[in-house]
């Protein structure tokens, strides 16, 4: 979806998801508690994608929603919880009781997942790390194997590269040339984007030119296939410089997601029943009555 001049075009999120995410794809939506791409996750749900292999270090609310809505065939992850609150009930329901259907899981440690993205971004088939030895993870996860140093003979663990079909990230800004800038905690987003065949970035806003930001990184336009402007697009997580974490939402999610029907109703009303993320934001605002 690049424009003629070689710049990444700004499109609607609806179009970006329609053009770039297919049923059966391996999709990584990343954002390490900061800049979680919620708007994009909702649009995937709205468009009813199925049989996705979902990849994410920290599956949280958005993956709980994708799993609960039956979009996922498989989950590749390293920590699945509601950060600061507790369990992901839709994820647990899928794993513990196969609801709404069986969910295959492939689990690693954070270090393993991070290095799998690094290998993917580097076009290497595998990455090497110290870890896993002595744990039960290698007995349940097939994508962990020993490897020997050709110089010292030392044994280490290898994990295969992650090469998602699509990576989705949320960033603070894009510039007029189609570059994308993130700052603050940038987690694994650079590697996730560079490891994928196609990249969608939602942003808070488009600016003429970036200015230096604390610990900012820029993903050049050539590494991004579509940019969609979605202010507030990482709610309920935060976007440094734009808005804070909506902690109450994380807490509210616990009772909503605990109950299958309550979850379905909620998703029906706020996600399927809205045409885009700005409508969604209005829709949840109306509903919530907080002390």
């Amino acid at each position: 979806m690049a424009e003629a001049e070689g710049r990444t075009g700004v499109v609607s999120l609806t179009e970006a998801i329609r053009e770039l995410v297919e049923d059966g794809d391996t999709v990584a939506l990343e954002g390490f508690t900061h800049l979680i791409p919620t708007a994009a996750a909702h649009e995937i749900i709205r468009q009813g994608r199925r049989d996705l292999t979902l990849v994410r270090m920290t599956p949280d609310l958005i993956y709980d929603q994708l799993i609960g809505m039956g979009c996922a065939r498989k989950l590749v992850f390293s920590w699945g919880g509601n950060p600061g609150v507790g369990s992901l009930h839709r994820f647990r329901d899928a794993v513990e009781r196969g609801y709404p259907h069986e969910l295959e899981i492939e689990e690693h440690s954070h270090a393993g997942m991070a290095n799998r993205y690094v290998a993917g971004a580097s076009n290497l088939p595998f990455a090497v790390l110290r870890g896993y030895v002595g744990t039960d993870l290698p007995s349940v996860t097939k994508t962990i194997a020993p490897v020997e140093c050709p110089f010292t003979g030392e044994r280490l663990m290898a994990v295969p590269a992650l090469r998602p079909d699509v990576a989705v990230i949320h960033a603070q800004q894009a510039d007029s040339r189609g570059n994308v800038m993130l700052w603050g905690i940038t987690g694994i987003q650079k590697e996730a984007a560079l490891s994928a065949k196609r990249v969608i970035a939602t942003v808070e806003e488009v600016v003429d030119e970036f200015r230096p930001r604390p610990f900012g990184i820029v993903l050049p336009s050539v590494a991004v296939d579509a940019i969609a402007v979605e202010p507030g697009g990482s709610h309920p997580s935060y976007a440094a410089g734009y808005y804070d974490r909506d902690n109450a939402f994380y807490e509210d999610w616990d009772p909503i997601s605990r109950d299958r029907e309550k979850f379905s109703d909620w998703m029906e009303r706020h996600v399927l029943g809205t045409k885009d993320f700005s409508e969604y934001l209005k829709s949840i605002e109306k509903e919530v009555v907080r002390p």
Partner: protein
Amino acid sequence: MSGNSEYTTDEMMTVAASRELHDGVSCFVGIGLPSEAANLARATHAPNCFLIYESGTLGAKPDVLPLSIGDGVLAEHADSVVSVPEVFNYWLQAGRVDVGFLGAAQIDRYGNINTTVVGDYASPKVRLPGAGGAPEIAASAKEVIVILRHSRRAFVEKLAFVTSVGFGEGAGSREKLGYSGAGPSVIITDLGVLRPDPETREFTLTALHPGATVEQAKEATGWDLAVADELLTTDPPEARELEVLRDLKERTERAKRKAEV
């Protein structure tokens, strides 16, 4: 030291854990109880401890407790913020972490930790969040401090799943596995303190918090808990420790409520 009898067992636990953190050390901090204890230490006796969170914040100096591992408050006053691969490869795996500060869902007598499942892996009774950063913290930090509440559900005879290795099957296990870190040096609970036997590496009750009894500790432990010959009593929280902890938690609550408006 001045005592203070008006405190909860959770406060005693956090204070005891915070005291384990020496000034100037670099500490890889898990969210929740570890983060609370580490920040109490930083606000009291260890102002120069270097807090690392797996979100990539190096030298984090949160003025309120982070609600998640990647909160903005961790980045704001950090010395540096790096990517997740860097924090795990260049910092933790590189041996730059003196102390790993972990919580646990289940722990066994050798300090091995389960945060993966209760019951069978393929069809679990309870699916827990999973490994996160813990396995490599347990492997590579020079030493590990574990903090969790004492209960029979948590202190089990046999783990359903070994997510992170403590002393494996006892003395010599870590060496055989090739782990560079020394392993868990202490488990702090709301009842007391457990330290590994120098020979067997089995965790042994070495101190009780004021008011707690050996019977309580044994009752809350799923294996036949060994008790040290010389059982110490933890110094109760000092007024200053309690004051700082409560202030920290209150400011955190305020920030949380503010974030909820």
